[in-house]
């Protein structure tokens, strides 16, 4: 129910965006993420972007995962 998937914003018109999810284009409302820009990835939940994915944090988490698995 709280499922949300990463979606890439391709274009924005007002509060509506066109997003790409694995090659499929969908409409998404940006009412909950007014700061989202073209090129951002957002978490899309029932047609609404609920969060802008932070690429730096994503990279940090991957780095942490690698460090933890190496440290054992």
């Amino acid at each position, binding site marked *: 129910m709280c499922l949300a998937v990463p979606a890439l914003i391709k274009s924005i018109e007002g509060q509506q965006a066109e997003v790409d999810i694995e090659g499929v284009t969908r409409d998404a409302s940006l009412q909950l993420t007014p700061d989202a820009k073209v090129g951002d990835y957002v978490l899309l939940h029932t047609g609404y972007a609920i969060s802008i994915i932070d690429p730096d944090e994503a990279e940090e988490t991957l780095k942490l*995962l690698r460090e933890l698995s190496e440290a054992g």
Partner: protein
Amino acid sequence: MKFVEEYRDPELGKRLLERIQKRSHKPARLMEFCGGHTVAIFKHGLRQLLPDNIEMLSGPGCPVCVTASADLDKAIALGRLPDVIITSFGDMIRVPGSRSSLQKARAEGADVRIVYSAQDALAIARDNPEKSVIFIGIGFETTAPTIAASILQAEQERIKNYYVLSLHKVCPPIMKAILDLGEVNLGGIICPGHVSAIIGSHPYEFIASDYKIACAVSGFEPLDILLAVDSLVEQIESGQPKVEIAYRRGVKPEGNAPAIRLMETVFEIGEANWRGIGPVPSSGLQIKSRYEKYDAARNFTIDPGPTLEPAGCICGNILRGVSTPPECKLFRVTCTPEHPVGPCMVSSEGSCAAYFQYGEKNI
């Protein structure tokens, strides 16, 4: 898919599991609050891969499952009114109420339509100005802001035939209610990822400080979940519970301010009726009187009749973490995904459906 595949690396997963195996010694019962986590944990066979001293327990984080029969009866009664179109997320229409379901009501002539988004429900209202279009508003803090946005959009566009039956619920108070019941002795909680994308991680602080239970907000890929379990193990072994975010690409400690503002504009906190738990104060979202013209509960007169619970169904115990699906006498016998008796078998993220689909097999 970007931001997905990276978090499914099996080699990294194997090494993280080894790390958890090596570091986890104390017996620990961990609750994954969210039904989405239950499904992900089963799908990736994580229960079997974790050390024996770690027990995973499903929580009440499935909005369809926790909808009380009495509330479902209201939705069905609304659907039987003339000139009404009921719009709902898919799973809800199959959940049995006291005497019927939205699906049965539809077979008997009610106009019940499945929508993917509240935006679709608004579009149906726009296209059918002579009908009253009622959206059955279920969901936690992840979904509630989207419904709030739809109400504000209806006001902006002067759509006068759009209504919401708000059955929305909020998570931290039900976590507290479950802990206060004292039926499950938890060492840690995997906090819901997308609820937290909205509310942040601060609302869970009381769990670590008052109940001394470890908390980690998790994403939904296997490495996200293992990272959260690693954090919980670290907290449990060190005896220092806190709230960690293991899903930083999607969750900020303070949450999503514009979404919280929208939710607070339209809704106010009130009592909610939880299946298996009953009425819990301050655990639901009701439409503020300023927006009462969109509130289905205030604009329609219905008689939903007396509430009956399905005989033999132990969904309530399962939602509180007291029982597991195989302990139910109906499980796999009379209760299956094709013929569900209770909501935990209807919703794809219900515990019963997850146990039925994935069993204890390692995928």
